[in-house]
Each structure stands twice: as C-alpha cells, then as structure tokens.
C-alpha cells in the first residue's frame, strides 16, 4: 500500500464510518429491532480495518521517514510523533470498543456512543499529523467537542451534566487563549506552517513570550496542568468507564502533543519552555498525588493520579526541550504510551467492577473505595488486573511504569545539574507517596471478607475481561522487555528534538 494513501485511509475510514454507524444504529433503534449488534461490530471492524494502513505507515515512517499527504491546500504529514500518537490512540480505542460492547449495552443512545468513538480517535490521529498551526487547533477543538459529547453520555445523570459543563467552559476558555496565541504568531511570521515558523519567531521578544504563555495555558487546560486541572477529576469520574480510559489515556496526552507541536514553533523565541514544563511537572506531580491521597471514590482517585502522571511526562519533555537530551523525550513518550496502557487498564478494570456491581443492576452509582473490599475472591482476574495497573502506576517493577520512569530519571541525571537532581529526588519521593493511595486499594481487594456490594455482584462478561487481559499482559511484557517500544519512542523523540532544533 502506498504510504500517502494509507494515511488518507487511516483518517478517512473512521470519519466515513462514524455516520454509517450512527445510521445503522439509529435505524435499528427506530425499528425496535435487535440490529444494534451491527453497529457495535461495525465499529470494531472499523478499528481493525484501520490496523492495516497503520501498520503500513508504521513500517514506512520508522524505516524511511515522514509521510506527506496533500488534500487541497491542507498538508498532512505523519512523522515519528504522529505515528506514535496514532499507534497509542488506535490501540487503546480498539480495546475500549471491545470493552464497551457489554458495558454500554442497553443504555439509551448506545449508537451515538459507537458513532462518536471512531470520530474521537480520528481527531486525535489527525492532531498528530498536522503541519499547520491553525489546523492543529481545528483538530484539537474537534477532539474537545467529541469528548464533551462522550462525557455527557449519561445525560440523565446530574453528575455527568455538571461535569461536562465544567469541562466545556474551561476547555473553551483555553481554546480561546490558543486562538489568540495563533493570531500573535500569524501576525508576526505571516505563515502558519509549523516548520517555517521557528526561524521567523527568533528575537520576537514579547510576541513570542505572550504566544507561548497563551499556548501553555490554553493547551494546559486540556493537559490538566495544575491548577488548570479542576475539570479533570469531575469529567473522568462521571464519564462512562471506556471514555474515562480514553480521556485519561489519550485525550489529555493528545493535548500534550498539541502543546509540544505549538511550542516547537516558538523554540527560537525563548529558551524557557522546557523550564516552564519542568515547573508545571513538579506542581502536577505534587498536587495530583496529594489530592488523590484521600479520595473515597475510585475513579476520582485515578483521575488525580493522571494529573500526577502527566507531571512525569512533563519532566521528561522539559528536560528534552531545555537540554536536548534524547532520553528525556524518549522517556516522556514511553511514559505517555505506558500511561495509556496503565490508566486505560485501571479505568477499564474499575469499569468492570462498576459493571458487575452496579450497572447490571441498573444503577449508575459511583464506585467507592470501600466497595472493593474482598473483590478478589469473586473477581480474581479483574482484581489482579487492577492491582497490576495500580502497581505499574506506582512505578514498581517488573511493570511498564517502572521502565519509563527510569528513563525519565536517567534523562534528568544526564543534565548533570544539581537542581535537576533535586527534582528527580522530589519526583521519586512523590512516587513513594503515590503508593500511599495505590497500595491500600490493592490491600482492600485481597481481603477475605467481601463487602456487601461485592457479595451481591454479577459475573463479568467475557468481552470485558478480554481487554483487561490484553492490557495486563502488555504492561507486564513491557516491564520485562523494555526494548520493544524503543524504536517507536525514539522516532517520536527525534521529531520532537528536531522541532526544538537539537537534531
């Protein structure tokens, strides 16, 4: 397959399928028929169908370099970073789709869920492939809008509405800031091409600084830089579990990728961006962990843990951007990928518990920490999967999170500066602190006395267990063979370093 055509297909398949899925689903609902299975399986087939072009692109990009695609005046280019994001998004979305079959079954507007999911994935893949600053915003905004709709999926729940409104307003404010930043860059450089801007922004003084600040804060809302993170725990905890996994695993990370792309245009305007990210990283790690420490609601705790985990990625990227250290970028991307797996698994496993304990009984009550007492007896696989996810998030070997954190810390040491060494110690201490909320949850699941909720729980569907199993195995496998992911990370890292003028 021609690489350019593969890129076109990769984006076209989900966008074209989205309305088809909606129509098939809608028609079957209108006829009161049982045809909704068609919409479900069609969604899965769409994702599997995206696998082939993605594979072609992967081989091409890793071996030969970026792939270009021209549609009218719009130029799309998939480089290492774009490929990395596409792989991550594709992997997680496919698993979330399978997971959602039983999870969303029977909910009102089920077909809309399946129609929006491929659209959400496509916007993120497109976001990674853009070469134009304004297009970046368009993809970003499209991703945001799709995710509003998905967060509000349980629109009969007060909590879901409340969370979506807060998410929407904050996100929109951020998006306005990004637009102003784009205006500043455009006015100054007369171009929007990501690769042409950097030299033109050199010595731009306040122009560059203001644009950068607007980008950092604007995208920062989506990335959940503390203190812009307040929408995140609300949205993550009220969305359907599959969407929580997507939000936490790839949506906020796509925001991060967008920020990296946007800041890349300003790389010659100021050397401060890396340091700024390092600062936000430290704040995120601390705030995320402290806020998670005393949460009683499981999904909310996981959401705060995402705030902290983003902080680790920021440390890696910050080091890479300030000092051009490849391990920083590679570690950052590695952690991004691993976080998609780990947090994806954590949210899906919690979703499996929600499914067994509440949803099958028609309740949408949140899962409290105390509900998980003794869950391992009845749900050994799910409890094990959640334990693995939590331990991996805590950075314990032989699991994925340990590997990527190690690489980030190594990158910090490579700078050979005392403040960064302190920053690593600080991050290390926070990893220990994070065990203060992960470990008790695991202990609860392995009690002998099951909680009443668990005792009354229903069995978990096979299609829910399957993605959990795959993700668990992947997390363990990466822990044992950290080399597997290195080519993908390295090519993403070299795209980033190139944008910041280090290669």
């Amino acid at each position, binding site marked *: 397959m021609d690489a350019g055509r593969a890129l076109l297909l990769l984006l076209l398949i989900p966008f074209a399928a989205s309305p088809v899925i909606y129509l098939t689903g809608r028609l079957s609902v209108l006829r009161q028929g049982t045809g909704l299975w068609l919409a479900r399986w069609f969604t899965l087939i769409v994702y599997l169908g995206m696998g082939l072009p993605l594979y072609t692109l992967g081989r091409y990009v890793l071996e030969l370099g970026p792939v270009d695609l021209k549609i009218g005046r719009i130029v799309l280019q998939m480089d290492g970073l774009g490929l990395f994001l596409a792989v991550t998004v594709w992997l997680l979305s496919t698993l979330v789709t399978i997971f959602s079959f039983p999870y969303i079954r029977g909910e009102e507007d089920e077909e809309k869920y399946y129609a929006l999911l491929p659209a959400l994935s496509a916007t993120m893949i497109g976001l990674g492939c853009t070469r134009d600053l304004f297009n970046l915003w368009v993809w970003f905004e499209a991703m945001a809008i799709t995710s509003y709709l998905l967060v509000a999926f349980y629109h009969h729940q007060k909590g879901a509405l409340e969370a979506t409104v807060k998410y929407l*307003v904050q996100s929109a404010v*951020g998006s306005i800031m990004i637009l102003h930043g784009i205006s500043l860059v455009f006015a100054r450089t007369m171009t929007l091409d990501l690769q042409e801007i950097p030299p033109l922004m050199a010595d731009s003084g306040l122009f560059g*600084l203001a644009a950068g600040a607007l980008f950092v*804060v604007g995208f*920062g809302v989506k990335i959940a830089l503390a*203190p812009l993170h307040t929408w995140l725990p609300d949205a993550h905890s009220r969305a359907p579990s599959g969407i929580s996994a997507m939000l936490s695993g790839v949506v906020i990370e796509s925001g991060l990728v967008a920020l990296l792309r946007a800041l890349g245009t300003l790389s010659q305007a100021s050397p401060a961006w890396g340091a*700024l990210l390092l600062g936000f990283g430290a704040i995120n790690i601390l705030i995320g962990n402290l806020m998670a420490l005393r949460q009683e609601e499981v999904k909310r705790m996981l959401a705060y843990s995402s705030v902290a985990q983003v902080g680790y990625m920021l440390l890696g990227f910050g080091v890479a951007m300030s000092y051009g250290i490849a391990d920083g970028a590679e570690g950052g991307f590695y952690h991004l990928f691993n976080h998609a797996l780990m947090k994806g698994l954590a949210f899906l496993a919690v979703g499996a518990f929600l499914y067994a304990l509440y949803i099958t009984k028609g309740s949408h009550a949140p899962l409290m920490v105390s509900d998980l007492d003794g869950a391992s007896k009845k749900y050994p696989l799910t409890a094990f999967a959640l334990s693995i996810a939590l331990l991996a998030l805590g950075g314990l070997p032989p699991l994925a999170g340990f590997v990527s954190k*190690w690489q980030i810390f190594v990158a910090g040491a490579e700078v050979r500066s005392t403040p960064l060494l302190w920053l690593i110690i600080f991050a*290390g201490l926070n990893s220990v602190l994070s065990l203060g909320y992960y470990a008790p949850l695991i202990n609860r699941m392995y009690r002998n006395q099951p909680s009443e909720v668990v005792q009354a729980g229903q069995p978990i569907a096979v299609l829910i267990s399957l993605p959990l199993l795959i993700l668990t195995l992947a997390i363990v496998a990466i822990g044992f063979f950290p080399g597997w992911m*290195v080519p993908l990370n390295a090519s993403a890292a070299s795209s980033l370093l190139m944008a910041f003028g280090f290669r």
Partner: protein
Amino acid sequence: MTAGILLLTIFLPWAGALFVWLVGNDRPRLQHSLAVGFSVAGGVAGLALLALGSPDEMVVLSIGGAFGNFSFRPDGLGVFLATIATVIGSLAVIFSVDYMRHEAQLGRYYALVLFFIGSMSGLVLTGNLFLMFAFWEMTALCSYALISFYNDDPKAVAGGIKALVMTQLGGIGLLIGAILSYSYLGTVEINVLLDKAELLPSNVLGIMAFGFLIAAAAKSAQFPFQTWLPDAMEAPTPVSALIHAATMVNAGVYLLARFYPAFAGVPGWQEAVMVVGMLSALLAGLMALVATDLKRVLAYSTVSQLGYMVYAVGAGGVFASQFHLFSHAIFKALLFLGAGAVIHSAGTRDMREMGGLGKQMPFVRTVFVIGALALAGIPVLNGFWSKELVLEAGLQGGATWMFGVMLFTAGLTALYTFRCVWMVFWGEPHHPAHLHDAGPAMKTALAPLAFGTLFSWLLAGSFSHLLEKTLPYHDIHAVSLVEILEEVIFAPATWIALGVVALGVLTWVFRDSLRLWQEVFAGIGQTARQSFGFEWLNQAVVRTTIQVAEDLRNLHTGVLNWNVLAIALTLLVVVVILALGA
C-alpha cells in the same frame, strides 16, 4: 551451562509462582506440592551454582541505552546469597506446608514467596544497575504484599505499607546512584562503575556513596529506618524467616559489600557506614531486651545483627560481613521458623503468655536453643566464628570506642537471647492447653537449618577462596579454614568478647540480685520500648501529609467561576514568570 543454571535459580521459582497461581485456590494440595517442587528445584540449582562461581559476565538480553544490557554474573558475593535465597527459600516453603495448612488464598501466598525467591536471586546475580534496582524494588513489592497477607487485619496492612514506603524511600538513594553512574560513565554496568570509580568527580561519587548507604540502611532496617522491620512481623512466620531475616534484609549489606571498592575512598563514608551499623546494633539490642512479642524480639535482634554486618563492611571486612551474613541467615531462619512452630501451636506471639513450653515441644526447644546459642555467640556454633571475625575486622579498621560499643552489644545479645529462650521454653507455664510439637514438614525444614547452624562455619575457607577468585575489585585474600580458626582463637579480642558474652549470660542468670541496676536501666527500657522516638517521627510525617492532603482538597471548590479564575490567574503568572525570565 553456568548461564543456564544461573537463570534457573531465577526462573524456576518464578515459573513455580505462575503455576501455583494458575492452579487456583480450589486445589490446595496441588498448590503445596507445586510450591515445594519448584522451590526445592530452585534450591538444587542454587547449590549447583555454588560450584560454578566465576567472574565472567553473561549477557542475556541486549537492550542498550538507559537500560543497559540485561547481564548476570555468578561471582562469589552473588552465588552465596543466591544459594541462601533459594535453599532457605525452599525450606521456608516446606515449613509453610504445615504452617499455612487450611489458610485461605494459598495461591497468592505461594506465588509471592516464589516470586520473591527468584527476584532475590536476580538481585544478587545481576551485573546491571538498572536490573539491580528493578529486582530491589521487586523484593520490596513481595515483602509488602506478604506482610499484609492477612489483609483483613489493619495492623498487617499498615505494616506492609510502612515497609513498602520506607524501603522505597531508601530505594531513591539507589536510583540516584544508578542514574548518576549512567550520566557520568555512560553505562549501568556494575563492574564498569567499580573499575572507573576514581574517574568520577568526587562530589558525584560522594552522592552515589551516600545514596547507596541510605538505600542499604532502608533495606536492611538500619538506623534511622529501623522501625519498619518490627512492624513487618505481621507477616506469616515463614515469610518473616525468609524475607525479614535470611534474605531480603541482607540485600542492604550486600549492596554495601558489592560497592565497597568504589566508595571506600570517599571521605567519611566508611565512618558513616560504621556508625550506622553500630547505632543499629546497639539500639536494636536494647529494644530486643524489653520487647515481649517473640517475633519482635527476633526482629530487633535481626536489626542488631545486620548492624554488625554493616559495621564490618565499613571497617573494610567484606569477607567478615559476608561470613556473618551467611551464618546469620541460617541461624536466624532457624530461630524464626522455630518461633513459627511455637506460635502456630500456642496461638499467641506474646512471650508472657508462654513459658514452660520446652517439655511439650522438645524438638522445637532443641533446635531453638541451638539457634539461640549461635545468636549469642557461644562457641563453636557458626555465629560465634563469624561474630568474632566481625569484631576483629572492626578493631583493625575502625575506632576503638566503636569496637567497645560492639562488644557491649555482644553482651547485650547474649542477655536478650537467654531472656527470650527462658521466657518461652522454661519458667512458669502460662498456657493451660496441651500443645503439639512441630509437624513433619516443619521438622523437615528445621533439621537442616539446625545442622547448618552447627557446621556451616566449616565452609569459611572455601567461601574466602571463592570470593578471592571471583571478585577482581575487592582485594580479598583467601584464607584457609585452619587459618581462620587460628586467627579467631588466638586473637585477644575473642577472649574479651567471650568474657562479655559470659557477662551477659550471667546478668540474666543473676537478674534477681541486680535489682539496683534494673532501676537504673528502667528509663532506657522505657525509651527503647518507644523505639527511641523514631516511631513518633514516622507517625508525625504521616499525619502531616494526610492533613495537608485533606486541606488541599478544600481548594477544589466545585464552583465554575473559581476554576476559570484559576485559568486566568495562571496565564497571568506564566506571563510574569516568562517576562521576568527574559
């Protein structure tokens, strides 16, 4: 061949862990047999490895970059500890067949124990700092999960998390050392670090040296991290014997011994190591004297004996420390498993509720006394020889006043050991019911350990040969067994030490006539019971963190306007910071 057997010591237990876990808790008999089978096979591989020690590196997986190559090296330091881990591990598993009979969630128990055994082998055999750190954390993970095995008991959960958090805190020291090695030497190979340590800037080497010391202190429950080990005694007793006496806690001593050649030149490092060892030995000895929980007494004595080993490394006695480690692993495992047999049948850990158990449990009494005599340093058991070597190394390589303190602690050891044995096996019976002696599986595990306690010192000569042959950077001179015996017997330090030990024993025998002294020491006893204030410090830190976390939550008001205000203010702050920076 060597590589295959080396990997077997890691992967046989791991495979066992997987199988036992997959079998499921519905078939406990199969679980018991699988666990015993795999752990014994691992033990055999460990023993075979002992004969194959070599300084050569074996690369298993080449990854490069920040992860280095996954390499292993069966040198003397490594194989000895790997053998201890696999052999004592298999004995602990055999013991568990009786001890854990009819317990729920056996699969989790055995899987974690076996996973631990493999990880411990890996930790000591690997030649790569990244892997070492990974195995280091894996052992901590198993330790945590096994301490809180009885998850319904809040004390067990708290103890497990405490152990995890404290060893992880120390782990940061190891992490910093390892990443600095990569940063300045471009590799995480341990031997490259040992080889090129002088090339590092002195301040970097200093950070690494003290980072490793912190890591070792946390892992080996040394001052000021000693508080986690007593709380770890909530674990099932075979786990205490294996992880918290014979193997994992030795990892810290191993770490110091392994990197001694690199750090010996760092100013103040040796002294710091010795002081840490000395303080741990002394304070833990005092705490053991006043504790009433049988397992806690043993835990404190473990801290104290580890202190001896750390002290020996600091004084340059790498061989002495490793030899004491070897002896201690055997006799302390014996003591713990013996205590496990007692606790299993008495149903309590409080020594005040025991007493006079000797008649009812003659086998356990015999082996426990053998272990206790070794702990007290009575000739000719293995603990005697190794402790004398440690003291001698301390006298040669360190200050005399420290030697004095260690001597005093030796007396203290004898005192608390006799107190403990007396309270459990002799004296007034406080337990009405008739107690059964150890079961067959327990006896199978205890007998080899008792045998080892009596005779393991005969291996000292070949041990030193192995160390000399396989450790190119450590500058260890091989000595034959006869030379070691002569050295110990004719050293004046030995006789002084024996005198002090005798004094300790006599103090216990004539305790009733020493009322006056008891009054004097009552105050010390009181502070010792409260862990000399360290427990309070730990709790204060935890309390503060939780309070801060709770207060911080109030900042999440849930009011949309405030959230947007945060965005606007952040923009302002970022702009100001950037403007000031520019």
